[in-house]
């Protein structure tokens, strides 16, 4: 592993973001809108629901954590798509760069961009809607960590899809979080779901996070074992996603897709 080569990927992303308003604004614009929308909704729900229950940590907190996951995932795929859009595959993959260094650079880029988004979300949620992360206690750290790991795995998986199916397949990436969210129980308990959906949710790390979050808000204690399960699943998905990415990359080397990527497929 070379730190220089990993840093090169991060630096490239920094240069692109620094010089482009159209890349800076999306880092926080949609999630800021989300915070404002859900902030007012929770405020309204607090006025009509039975007194004593606070929707802010239950709903707004959940949306904040879910948006953090999306930011991590999109941070990786956006950095990858920069190479797709600028037709840079041949230049970049003809260097000594290892796949692990490339993936490491994408992840580090994503951490940096996601922290910007997280900061903006926290500012809006805390300053305007009085969300206190202290409600969750120290559990907020494993919550964020599990979502962070799962975001990485989905980002790498999304990149593998684009590498496999060509530049036009980027639309596969954007709806992925929306496809997962009904099963992950972001806004409602998993027990609300039909049995088959509950079964699927057991394999989704975010479901353990959001169940834990609701338990804490209801006055209980989040299960350490459940969070550990979510964390281990997320780590497993990272390995699985990287394995898929490497497999797609090796296949692209065999078929010549890397060298002729703009052709989308070689059929």
């Amino acid at each position: 592993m070379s730190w220089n080569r990993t840093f090169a990927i991060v630096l490239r992303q920094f240069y692109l973001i620094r010089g482009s308003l159209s890349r800076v604004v999306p880092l926080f614009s949609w999630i800021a809108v989300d915070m404002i929308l859900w902030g007012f909704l929770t405020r309204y729900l607090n006025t009509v629901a039975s007194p004593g229950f606070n929707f802010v940590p239950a709903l707004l907190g959940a949306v904040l954590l879910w948006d953090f996951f999306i930011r991590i995932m999109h941070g990786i795929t956006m950095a990858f798509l920069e190479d797709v859009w600028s037709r840079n595959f041949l230049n970049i993959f003809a260097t000594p760069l290892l796949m692990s260094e490339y993936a490491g650079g994408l992840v580090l880029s994503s951490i940096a961009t996601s922290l910007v988004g997280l900061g903006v979300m926290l500012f809006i949620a805390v300053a305007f809607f009085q969300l206190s992360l202290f409600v969750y206690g120290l559990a907020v750290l494993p919550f964020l960590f599990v979502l962070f790991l799962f975001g990485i795995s989905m980002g790498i998986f999304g990149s593998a899809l684009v590498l496999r199916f060509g530049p036009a397949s980027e639309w596969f990436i954007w709806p992925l979080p929306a496809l997962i969210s009904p099963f992950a129980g972001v806004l409602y308990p998993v027990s609300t779901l039909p049995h088959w959906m509950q079964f699927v949710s057991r394999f989704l790390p975010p479901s353990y996070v959001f169940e834990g979050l609701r338990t804490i808000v209801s006055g209980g204690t989040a299960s350490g074992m459940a969070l550990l399960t979510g964390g281990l699943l997320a780590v497993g998905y990272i390995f699985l996603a990287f394995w898929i990415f490497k497999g797609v990359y090796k296949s692209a080397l065999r078929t010549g897709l890397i060298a002729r990527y703009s052709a989308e497929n070689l059929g």
Partner: protein
Amino acid sequence: MTEMLALQGLRKVYGDVVAVDGISFDVRPNEIVGLLGPNGAGKTTTINMVLGVLQPDAGTIHIEGLDLARNRSQAIARTNFAAVYTPLPGNLTVYQNLRVFGLLYEVKDLPKRLNELLKQFDLEAFRDKKCGVLSSGEQTRVSLAKAMLNHPKLLLLDEPTASLDPSTASEIRTGIRQFVKQGTSGVLWTSHNMYEVEAVCDRVLFLSHGKILLEGDPKKLPGAHGKRTLEELFIAVAREPLTFGMS
């Protein structure tokens, strides 16, 4: 001394099409080898395999003695390339692109090397300009500067002067000749400009339908096959490959 590039039995097939058909050749230190042939002859496929972005179906590639299949990163670190069809990202400036690729090739004392290259390729005025706004000739100079970043032991140039004016192309050719003379590097050069090939290359290989049909000194080869110029020989090989041993 170890060959800068040694190919043995290299073969690549796309479906029913044999793009490269078991070719073997080498590039020695201080040597510029021209890889010639009509469109679709297998030149770029060969270069892509040497660059590690295309896996051969058979055969071996050694770069300065290192097996590309087993030591990809170390072998590729000894190479670099410039191709007319792969400009650097247009959304980064000249300096940013060169810095990013300098890090990818782990160039020592990078700021000093970048300044040397900006001067050598007459790019100082464009240092902070985005590559996408440069003329095609200027973009080619940036690609060539990128290709020289790591003092490559094996330099792969795929039609490097295709979009340059004659004066700049001549300077580039002189610069690359000097680069080869001063060190121990070898160059694999493809071009459709036979005048350029004759002026620059020490040896040429004629490729047709994925096979090497002819090999030799570009100044002597035409006479040896009853042709006046390299261009005449090129046309003859492209039109009548059977005459030159194609089976």
